């Protein structure tokens, strides 16, 4: 079965081709269902492979299948090949599963859009690229998927291409990603030069003797790759594209900018856990960046009013969590959180989308409020998502997040602190969004209010499914009691080598005293609930508080509200300066200097020519003179020499 893994990316590609090439005349329904079915099929295959893996014994749960040689040049030999192991299977299931749900949701959400077909073509293309990314068995193919998803995100963000902001956002996303990919690419080159191969298995096999633990080389490699990760997964300093990416249709935000693509970085880091484990410095960097991002993004999230932007920043913050997990060596927990996050963040986005849908495109929470009556399902599911992300027991987020916090604490209490701060802020702004949207008195603009309606079942059903998933999704990996953490155990073989390096031979994950674990659980639960009450107090009990706070610290609020002016700084620092410099080069160097010289030579020639004309006076005596002058020179040379 697992040798049919190539079917998984193939199905979406087929769907994409069908819709894209011959789907011009088809009705929306067909197009939509073809798209969804394609992804669904991939899910089925992935699931069956998963079951097959379960059947095998943990040691041998890693199967490679090469389709054909892609690039062969000298000793460079890159196959189109796939790697099936617990990690990739999990990713495939998440991607195809969530992807399928979102496809279905889109059928309803995008109904009647002009570019309906274009939308589904891109979406399928994206799933194809994403699946390639997670199933590739070598760096270069992974890079193909890596850039592929970037392209699709560019296309989908710019879906409403007539909106300048949209196409700008798309471009920004692609370029910023390119900056990351630049690092990634160099990393790949360095790996090839070091190992002479680009296959994961080959690299991992050779790593111990090719690299020294904590050596410069491995550190360099891992850091370069991490640059790629920061780009794709919107970490400091390359996160700026993600908030703007909300210009795309909401399902896109749900699929690409919450559930799947942005997690590619996390997947990559954990895929290379071995290398990272060998480079403590890089680990620390990853952890620090992750933690910092988690807090930083959360602070911005608190002040935003655009519901999708709130979610976007929360996504960045959650991704920070995952990286922190990887950074502290808890790769499994990172992936675990990745999965749960996929569930509830997708849910939240789609719920938000349904709200938009209901309010005919309104995104500003200041014009919402009291919607829970009108939009019962949406309301309920959104609550579920919020509870999950805030980490309320027994929702999915609770387990994954606490696992991360625990390991962070084990590594160093500071990381735990960061996580905790992020957590409280998260739960605060999430509940804030809940209250501002669904509670309090309605601030909906009248004309929006006119046709205010709950979304059709085609949209609500996916919501419900995801709501359920975000409720029970965490149960597959209950951390405390060893043995119950099936998820961790399932992934364990993948990370075993890394763990071995990290804490020597003896210890492995999940071996620690219960009391501490429980204590931390309690604390974080408290934090979550604290966030809830704070939000409730500020937005339900006494809505005037926020303004008071703002007027208390206006500058602070300004700064945070404007995302610390990072975009502006970047513009000044890089964009404008380069553009201005390029203009200078064009005008001052290309036109002035080079062409100046070229035309100058021509001009000089003409000048001499005119001079020579003047000599040609037309007077015989002058001509005779010049002849005589010639005589003088010739004779002079001959006689006096």
């Amino acid at each position: 079965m697992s040798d049919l893994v190539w079917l998984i990316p193939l199905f979406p590609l087929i769907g994409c081709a069908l819709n894209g090439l011959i789907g011009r005349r088809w009705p929306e329904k067909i197009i939509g269902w073809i798209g969804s079915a394609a992804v669904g099929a991939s899910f089925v295959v992935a699931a069956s492979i998963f079951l097959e893996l379960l059947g095998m014994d943990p040691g041998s749960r890693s199967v490679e299948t090469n389709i054909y040689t892609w690039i062969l040049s000298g000793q460079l030999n890159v196959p189109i090949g796939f790697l099936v192991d617990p990690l990739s299977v999990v990713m495939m299931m998440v991607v195809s599963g969530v992807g399928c749900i979102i496809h279905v949701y889109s059928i309803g959400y995008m109904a009647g859009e002009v570019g309906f077909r274009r939308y589904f073509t891109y979406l399928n293309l994206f799933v194809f690229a994403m699946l390639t990314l997670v199933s590739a068995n070598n760096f270069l193919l992974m890079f193909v998927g890596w850039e592929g998803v970037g392209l699709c995100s560019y296309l989908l963000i710019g879906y409403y291409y007539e909106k300048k902001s949209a196409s700008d956002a798309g471009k920004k996303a692609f370029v910023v990603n390119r900056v990351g990919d630049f690092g990634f690419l160099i990393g790949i080159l360095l790996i090839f030069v070091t190992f002479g191969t680009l296959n994961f298995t080959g690299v991992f096999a050779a790593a111990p003797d090719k690299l020294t633990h904590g050596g410069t080389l491995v550190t360099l490699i891992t850091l370069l790759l991490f640059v790629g990760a920061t780009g794709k997964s919107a970490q400091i300093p390359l996160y700026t594209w993600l908030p703007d990416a909300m210009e795309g249709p909401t399902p896109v935000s749900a699929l690409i900018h919450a559930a799947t693509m942005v997690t590619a970085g996390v997947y990559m880091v954990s895929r290379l856990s071995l290398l990272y484990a060998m480079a403590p410095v890089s680990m620390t960097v990853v952890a620090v960046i992750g933690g910092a991002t988690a807090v930083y993004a959360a602070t911005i999230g608190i002040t935003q009013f655009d519901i999708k932007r709130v979610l976007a920043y929360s996504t960045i913050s959650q991704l920070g969590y995952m990286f922190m997990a990887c950074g502290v060596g808890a790769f499994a927990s990172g992936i675990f959180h990745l999965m749960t996050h996929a569930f509830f963040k997708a849910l939240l986005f789609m719920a938000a989308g349904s709200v938009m849908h209901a309010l005919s495109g309104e995104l500003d929470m200041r014009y919402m409020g009291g919607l829970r009556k009108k939009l019962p399902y949406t309301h309920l599911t959104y609550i579920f998502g919020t509870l999950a992300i805030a980490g309320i027991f027994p929702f999915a987020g609770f387990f994954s997040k606490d696992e991360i916090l625990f390991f962070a604490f084990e590594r160093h209490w500071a990381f735990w602190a960061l996580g905790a701060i992020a957590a409280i802020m998260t739960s605060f702004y999430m509940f804030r969004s809940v209250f501002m949207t669904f509670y309090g008195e309605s601030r909906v603009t009248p004309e929006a209010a006119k046709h205010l309606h709950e979304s059709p079942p085609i949209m609500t059903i996916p919501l419900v499914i995801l709501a359920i998933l975000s409720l029970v999704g965490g149960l597959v990996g209950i951390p405390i009691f060893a043995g119950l953490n099936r998820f961790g155990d399932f992934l364990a073989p993948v990370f075993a080598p890394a763990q071995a390096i990290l804490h020597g031979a003896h210890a492995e994950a999940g071996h620690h005293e219960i009391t501490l674990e429980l204590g931390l659980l309690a604390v974080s639960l408290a934090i979550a609930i604290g966030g809830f009450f704070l939000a409730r107090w500020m937005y339900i009990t006494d809505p005037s508080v926020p303004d008071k706070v703002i007027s208390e610290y206006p500058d602070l609020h300004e700064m945070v509200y404007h995302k610390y002016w990072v975009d502006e700084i970047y513009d000044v620092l890089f964009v404008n300066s380069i553009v201005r410099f390029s203009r200078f080069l064009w005008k001052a160097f290309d036109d002035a200097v080079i062409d100046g010289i070229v035309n100058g030579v021509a001009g000089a020639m003409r000048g001499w020519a005119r001079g020579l004309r003047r000599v040609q006076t037309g007077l015989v005596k002058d001509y005779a003179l010049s002849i005589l002058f010639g005589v003088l020179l010739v004779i002079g040379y001959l006689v006096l020499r």
Partner: protein
Amino acid sequence: MIPVPEVNLGGILPALVLCIAGLVVIGAGLFVPRGKLTYTALISLVGIIIAFMANSHLRYMNQSAFAGLVVLDPYGWFLNIVILTAVGLTILMSVRYLADEGMQLYEYFVLLLFASAGMMFMVSANHLLMIFVGLETLSISIYILAGIRPGKPRSQEAALKYLLLGGFASGIFLYGAALLYGSAGSLSLPVLAEYCQKWDMSLMAKAGMGLLLVGFGFKIAVVPFHMWTPDVYEGAPTPITAYMSVGVKAAAFAAFARVFFESFVGVEVSWAIILWVIAAVTMIVGNVAALVQENIKRMLAYSSIAHAGYILIGMVAGREAGVSALLYYLLAYTFTNLGAFAVVVLVGRKGEANVMIDDYRGLAKAHPLLALAMAIFLFSLAGIPPTAGFVGKFSIFTAAVKAGYIWLVIIGVLTSAVSVFYYFRVVMKMYMEVPDTEPSALQFAPGTVVALVIAAVGVVYIGIFPTVYLNLAAESVKTLF
């Protein structure tokens, strides 16, 4: 009893034929009514064709005749071909021109024939006296031809300038000859050679050599003896300009090469360096000055100066390679330049109108084939393959590199890059610009068209299949060394 000199009329037959043809034309001129130039032209052409045949047997000769005044060898044979081609094409393109210009003069042909005869004597001369007589025969004929357009100040001015400066130059030439005579005791080239080899030249002889060099330098129009060229070429009747630019150049170069390589052997270094400098300066001045010319005849005049520079490289390079390259170049240049001037004649209007480069605007639209021909000639002048001009330049440069004159070659290639600008400028006018006035239709005179076709075919043919001609040139110079 006076010893009877051995008279070998067979050897000088081609020249003789031309002289006779000239006399016949004079005779015919008395009977053929003016305005019926076609007949006289035909007579001349027949004479030329006969001369061609009479020439053929020279190829296998190598002997001196007339008490060693002339030498009959393939070298002369090859140049006779060049000269006959030149005069033939010139006569072909002249008929209509004369009609247009309203000068029905059979003397025109007579003088052309005499001039050609003079050239032939010059190229096969083996004695400075013979060279001098031949040279003056052709010069005086050309003086007259240059000024033959009745009551046209420009034409007269051209004739006058050419005559005065020509006289000046031959004065210098003769003085040089005199000094050499004083040193060597005789002016026959073998004797001079003997002198140069036996003793190292006295200062006086060196001075004489220098003056001789100047004399030739004037005829081949190299800097700084070139200044008459643009004026004379502009003022003279276009066919005569064409004839001058190829015929006179060819003959002068031939004699030049013969004298210097046959007589001044062993002292090449001393004059080669002078020629090196002259060649370099000539290429630069000729090409640069041509950049800003507006009158196409004047532009071609400067271009011919530049080409004299290239040909001179052949002499600098010296020996078989150099001189054979020189001969091939002369042949290629004859076809090319005559072709170009044939176009100028065709495009030209009565009273030498339409000789501005701007008058060629839009020619490609009005007369595509004519423009194509002109383009071919210009490309050949610029030395762009696959034309005769390219092979010519190539062989010249090859010889120079062979002799180690890299810098001269570099100057050569750079200057020909410059030349591309003004040659392509004409192409540009023809193909890429539109005339501000609708051009009146040209009438294609059969003679001119024939000349044009011959030239065009020649340029392309000996450009693509140069082997035969290169070998011929190589053979012809064997006897020189």
